[in-house]
């Protein structure tokens, strides 16, 4: 090449260093997600602490609560031990730690598999690997980015927790809240590492996430058995979630339990880093089961295909609701023994008269309602994904009308909602029967169908959004769900105007089985959902098919 050509070339503009490109990119996304989830974790802690001071105002109420749940085996298995339930600190840990631990772990495994394996599946990882880096270095950078994300998660959680601790009636020292925040995100750290490891082992992101999810389930089950009071508490040291529990924040701190957490996280992350160098891009170290005999019995058309596609998630939700129903049934008796005027006041805010096991179920069936609401939102999101990913077009370019496709999805969604609701009702009855309460099966079936009503309405709103603004459908449907839940929680602590409370779909739902379901109201709620869904169908018929 002539020299003048070389000198005539424009100078190369300095770009971000190739040695930190993956780090910066991963960190940016992980920090954003960590900040959001940190806010959620912090709010849960704050609301638990503040709601305790509002609900259990007198020491007598608190002592009643401690007597009812302090030594309840089912409650301990579900939420962990409850050593100081008659204090704000003890209740806050009991109410929030296990939930936040699991939420943090889910965030960790989803974030790491998305930012490690998801990027690879999308083909973006190859672009980096074709540059000035190696697979191991790129993985190290990604792990660094994830570390930035989890640090943000901890920082945001800690700030909100410390601030809530300053509330005069809560009054928990800042140092204790910072330590509590460490416990809250410890599971997130460990499962970030687990997700990084399964990203090296599994053939794709979905499998990496599900493998890490199964491991989380195993850890939770081991911890449940250990806490069930059947003489095998030593098992707690075999579960990473048990190590977090052993940190005992706010009650009897045991920082030594940080050692296995740190060793496990570092060891698993190092193993992931080591294995990263030994596999091909786009595949995992474990053999893939990517061949299978054709199973055609459901694949008779768009409806059968929808059933086939929805089935794995539906089964997982049914199992989750079965477990929820069973546990609610088992602890209903203990829950029902809580008495006191302030407890009755709180129950009455949720439309539940008196106390007792049935009243307790009337209040706690809100959990089932929320879960079924999530199923509804998931169904809307799944339909939108079919469109956004371009898979829907394969059906719509054949003699399949948009209306028949959406109607099929609707039929599947409604069936899943009803079946999962019924599963919750039946397993609650099994739980109460096992606990010797002997609740009426018919009333629990009615309560189960009762929680399906708001979910059907949420699904209807989501379908309307899908028809009108497909790219915003997920935000709309999850937004409605989050709003309904938030307003219901506000209502529970006695805040919020009646007008505000009426905007929550859950607030319209009768607190069955404590009271009989209001089928007229349910009919109206479902009718609104049906009208919205019909509007969504009309809009879908007349709009463009839109990609992501």
């Amino acid at each position, binding site marked *: 090449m002539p020299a003048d050509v070389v000198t005539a070339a424009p100078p190369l503009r300095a770009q971000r260093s190739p040695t930190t490109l993956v780090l910066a990119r991963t960190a940016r996304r992980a920090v954003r997600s960590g900040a959001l989830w940190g806010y959620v974790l912090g709010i849960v802690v704050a609301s638990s602490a503040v709601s305790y001071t509002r609900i259990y105002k007198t020491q007598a109420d608190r002592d009643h609560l401690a007597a009812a749940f302090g030594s309840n085996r089912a409650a301990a298995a579900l939420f962990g031990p409850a050593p100081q339930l008659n204090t704000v600190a003890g209740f806050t840990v009991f109410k929030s730690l296990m939930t936040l631990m699991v939420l943090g772990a889910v965030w960790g495994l989803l974030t790491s598999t998305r930012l490690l394996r998801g990027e690879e599946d999308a083909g973006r990882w190859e672009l980096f690997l074709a540059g000035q880096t190696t697979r191991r270095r790129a993985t190290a950078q990604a792990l660094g980015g994830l570390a930035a994300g989890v640090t943000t998660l901890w920082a945001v959680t800690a700030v909100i927790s410390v601030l809530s601790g300053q509330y005069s009636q809560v009054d928990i020292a800042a140092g204790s809240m910072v330590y509590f925040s460490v416990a809250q995100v410890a599971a997130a750290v460990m499962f970030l590492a687990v997700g990084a490891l399964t990203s090296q082992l599994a*053939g*794709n992101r*979905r499998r990496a996430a599900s493998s890490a999810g199964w491991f989380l389930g195993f850890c939770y089950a081991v911890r449940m058995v250990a806490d069930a009071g059947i003489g095998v508490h030593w098992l707690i040291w075999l579960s990473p979630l048990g190590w977090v529990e052993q940190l005992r924040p706010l009650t009897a701190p045991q920082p030594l339990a940080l050692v296995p957490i740190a060793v496990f996280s570092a060891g698993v992350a190092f193993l992931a880093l080591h294995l990263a160098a030994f596999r091909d891009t786009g595949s995992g170290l474990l053999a*893939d089961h*990517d*061949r*299978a*005999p*054709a*199973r*055609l019995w459901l*694949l*008779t*058309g*768009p409806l*059968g*295909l929808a059933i*086939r*596609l929805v089935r794995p998630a539906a089964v997982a939700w049914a199992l989750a609701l079965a477990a929820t129903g069973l546990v609610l049934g088992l602890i209903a008796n203990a829950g029902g023994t809580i008495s006191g005027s302030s407890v009755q006041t709180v129950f009455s805010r949720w439309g539940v008269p008196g106390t007792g096991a049935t009243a307790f179920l009337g209040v706690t069936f809100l959990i089932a309602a929320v879960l079924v609401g999530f199923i509804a939102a998931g169904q809307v999101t799944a339909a939108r994904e079919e469109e956004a*990913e*371009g*898979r829907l*077009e*394969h*059906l*719509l*370019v*054949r*003699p*399949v*009308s948009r209306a028949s496709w959406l109607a099929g999805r609707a039929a599947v969604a409604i069936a899943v909602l009803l079946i999962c609701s019924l599963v919750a009702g039946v397993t609650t009855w099994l739980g109460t029967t096992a606990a010797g309460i002997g609740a009426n099966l018919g009333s629990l079936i009615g309560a189960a169908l009762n929680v399906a009503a708001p979910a059907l309405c949420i699904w209807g709103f989501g379908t309307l959004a899908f028809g009108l603004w497909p790219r915003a459908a997920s935000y709309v449907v999850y937004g409605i769900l989050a709003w309904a839940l938030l307003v219901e929680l506000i209502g529970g602590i006695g805040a919020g105007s009646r007008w505000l409370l009426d905007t929550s779909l859950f607030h319209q739902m009768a607190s069955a089985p404590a009271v009989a379901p209001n089928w007229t109201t349910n009919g109206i709620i479902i009718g609104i959902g049906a009208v919205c869904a019909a509007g969504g169908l009309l809009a879908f018929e*007349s*709009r*463009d*098919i839109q990609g992501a």
Partner: protein
Amino acid sequence: MGQVAVHCEGLSKRYGPVDALSQLNLDVAEGEVLGYLGPNGAGKTTTIRLLLGLVRPTAGRAEIFGLDCQHQTVEAHRRLAYVPGEANLWPSLTGAETLHVLGRAQGWVDEAYRDELVRLFELDSAKKVRAYSKGNRQKVTLIAALMCRPPLLVLDEPTSGLDPLMEQAFRHCIGEAKKRGQTVFLSSHILSEVESLCDRVAILRHGRLVETGTLADMRHLSALTVEATFDGAVPDLSRVAGVSSVHANGRVVRCQVSGPVQPLLKVLADYPVTELLSREPSLEELFLALYGDQAVKEPVAG
């Protein structure tokens, strides 16, 4: 032209301020293979999505075998099959399951031909879609379209990701489809593919149809390439009527001739020409002549 398989009348699509397709008037006869060409963003895929009823036109209308694409969509779709450029399929299904469900959705499958296509394209149909390469996913969509033997095939970059052997197999299948009287609407960037398969070509630019006709028609519109080798002095051909782009390399002169070649032959007759070659422009040259520098300089729509 026989019965019309595809009819577009003033078909337009606007996305915000951008005219992705503007006033398209186009007919494709039954049994014809039409090559639909244009640079990226010219409006080819938009046209196909309008024909399939996936997007709504801003103006105009389109028909498939006389059926309105927007209002008789399902009926129209009974008569066509479509291959997209991006084969996004259900990752958890195997190739065989995907072909089965797509066949059931279509309503009619020639199972013997499907099996023949699976062999021809060497598709491992027991594999799950998530394990397929891009080329293999494309094979699934091709087989799914061809196995139904529809009267109309709408193909949008159908060979993207296929290796040359599979591309040959594809050309073979389209050739057979043509013999059977199927109509093919082929959007492609592979000009040799269009040149070898298509009866007629339509060229889009910035959402507007700029040229349509057979390759022979279009060649007449473009310049002839002439190359002359001299045994002695080389004449100056740049002032000869109809001659342009003159390039001399030693005793060899190459130029383009538009219109009659008579003026050039008269000049050459006075010089010692040892070799004279002429050839018609290829589709690639036609394409580049139509787009040339402007295709690079001008922004493209939609």
